[in-house]
């Protein structure tokens, strides 16, 4: 599935596109080809071998790790996936770097046409973001390379499309469409007036919220200035009026009871637990009575040791140090600790738009005191 050529997407030469295609093929080979093979090898070879030696199958994540790290299939798989990840950013990064001055100008011109962007250069960058560039993406979402920079946004927008070998759709909005659809599925008659997308990045999940609720005023916050400048330019060039601002989702500048819907898509698993709990408390403060909070993320760790081990792969190998910890979240209890009514928690199983996936979107409604809807 090829990416939609919106006006801010980088323009690539024949050879740049061909390198991207090779990297996408590597991704597809490891994810669709090798990953199921790893499971088969584990079940058919490694588990019986472990059972023969120890009298039982590997019963914990640590035992699975020991078994897997002795397997060339696993170490080779891991090296290929890590190597592909580094190659992806450097390859797409070269194409972005080549045209960055023009991109910066195009983004600024697009932003001037509609929507708003409010940056806060004094906003402190949390240590957990400053210390680790998640996804091994050099500079992360926050590094400014030049005045008015959009590098991180341009890199991520093209890079994540190659990463997912096109599976996120022409606008990379597979997950955001599911987040927005989950609200509608759960509350068909809900008509929110103000919506906030936390950790909005390049806006891949922000625009679907605007599509789902065209009459609503939609805001997106993120820590990264170059990501927000790109997101605002991209949204405007696609005809959306969105209000982007540089804010920390754990402590925003919005007044109490500002929003009817607060959503995040794949944000929480990149945050340490204290920050996740702070996000939940901030959502509680920002929601209007009867409002809906929802987080589309991996909020439950699999019980089965092999699956849990593989789920933790990105923690060690893809610079996502908090992924494993996010799986220990007890969503109802943690929502209750943030002031919500735990009985109002819901989980929506939302089918994907392009992929054969069913996403788990966790949320809560009517949380503020006196705000319970019938």
């Amino acid at each position, binding site marked *: 599935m090829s990416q939609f050529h919106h006006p801010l997407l980088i323009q690539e*030469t*024949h*050879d740049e596109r*061909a*390198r991207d*295609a*090779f*990297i996408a*093929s*590597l991704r*597809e*080979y490891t994810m669709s080809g*090798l990953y199921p093979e790893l499971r088969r090898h584990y079940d058919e070879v490694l588990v019986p071998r472990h059972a023969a030696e120890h009298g039982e199958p590997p019963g914990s994540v640590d035992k699975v790790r020991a078994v897997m790290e002795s*397997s*060339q*299939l696993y*170490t*080779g*798989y*891991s*090296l*290929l996936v*890590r*190597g*592909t990840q*580094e*190659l992806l*950013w*450097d*390859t797409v*990064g*070269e194409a*972005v*770097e080549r045209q*960055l*001055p023009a991109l910066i100008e195009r983004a600024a011109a697009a932003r001037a046409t509609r929507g708003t962007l409010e940056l806060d250069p004094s906003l402190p960058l949390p240590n957990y973001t*400053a*210390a*680790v*560039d998640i996804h*091994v*993406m*050099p*500079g*992360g979402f926050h*590094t400014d*390379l*030049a005045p008015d*920079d959009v*590098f991180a946004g341009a*890199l991520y927008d093209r890079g994540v499309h190659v990463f997912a070998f096109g599976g996120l759709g022409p606008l990379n909005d597979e997950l955001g469409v599911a987040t927005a659809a989950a609200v509608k599925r759960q509350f068909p008659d809900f008509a929110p007036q103000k919506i906030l997308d936390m950790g909005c990045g390049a806006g891949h999940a922000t625009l679907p919220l605007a599509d789902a609720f065209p009459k609503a005023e939609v805001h997106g916050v993120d820590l990264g200035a170059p990501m927000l400048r790109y997101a605002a330019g991209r949204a405007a060039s696609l005809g959306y009026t969105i209000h982007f601002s540089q804010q920390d989702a754990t402590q925003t500048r919005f007044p109490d009871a500002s929003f009817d819907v607060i959503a995040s898509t794949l944000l929480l698993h990149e945050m340490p637990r204290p920050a996740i709990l702070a996000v939940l408390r901030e959502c509680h403060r920002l929601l209007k009575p009867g409002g809906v909070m929802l987080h589309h993320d991996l909020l439950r760790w699999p019980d089965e040791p092999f699956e849990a081990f593989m789920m933790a792969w990105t923690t*060690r*190998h893809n*610079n996502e*140090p908090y992924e494993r910890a996010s799986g220990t979240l007890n969503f109802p209890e943690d929502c209750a600790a943030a002031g919500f009514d735990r009985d109002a928690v819901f989980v929506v199983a939302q089918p994907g738009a392009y992929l054969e996936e069913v996403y788990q979107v966790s949320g809560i409604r009517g949380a503020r005191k006196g705000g319970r809807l019938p």
Partner: protein
Amino acid sequence: MAEPIKRRRKANGPRRPQYLASPDADRAVMMLLALAAEVSALRERLDTHERLAAAGQPPLPAAIDAYEAPEEVEAARAAARRSLIDRMARVLLEPESERTTAAANDARDD
């Protein structure tokens, strides 16, 4: 002319994990991935040349950059990329127990 803006090429964070017996072997494999991407791009560029020539168009750089592969051409290219990756991965992924050819030959020589 303004100084060109330089991207970062290294991510902040923990050291790259070690996969094979030495970090240098890991680095060599990662270099091979970059090289394989270039071989694949060269092969596709040659294919584009041939297709432009077959259509009576001079294969000049602007025409090559403007070329959009039709679906069946892209499918054939994807299959070729997959075959290249398969041939590279065969050796990388083979288990210790199957690296027997050389040893078996040595034994026969004894």
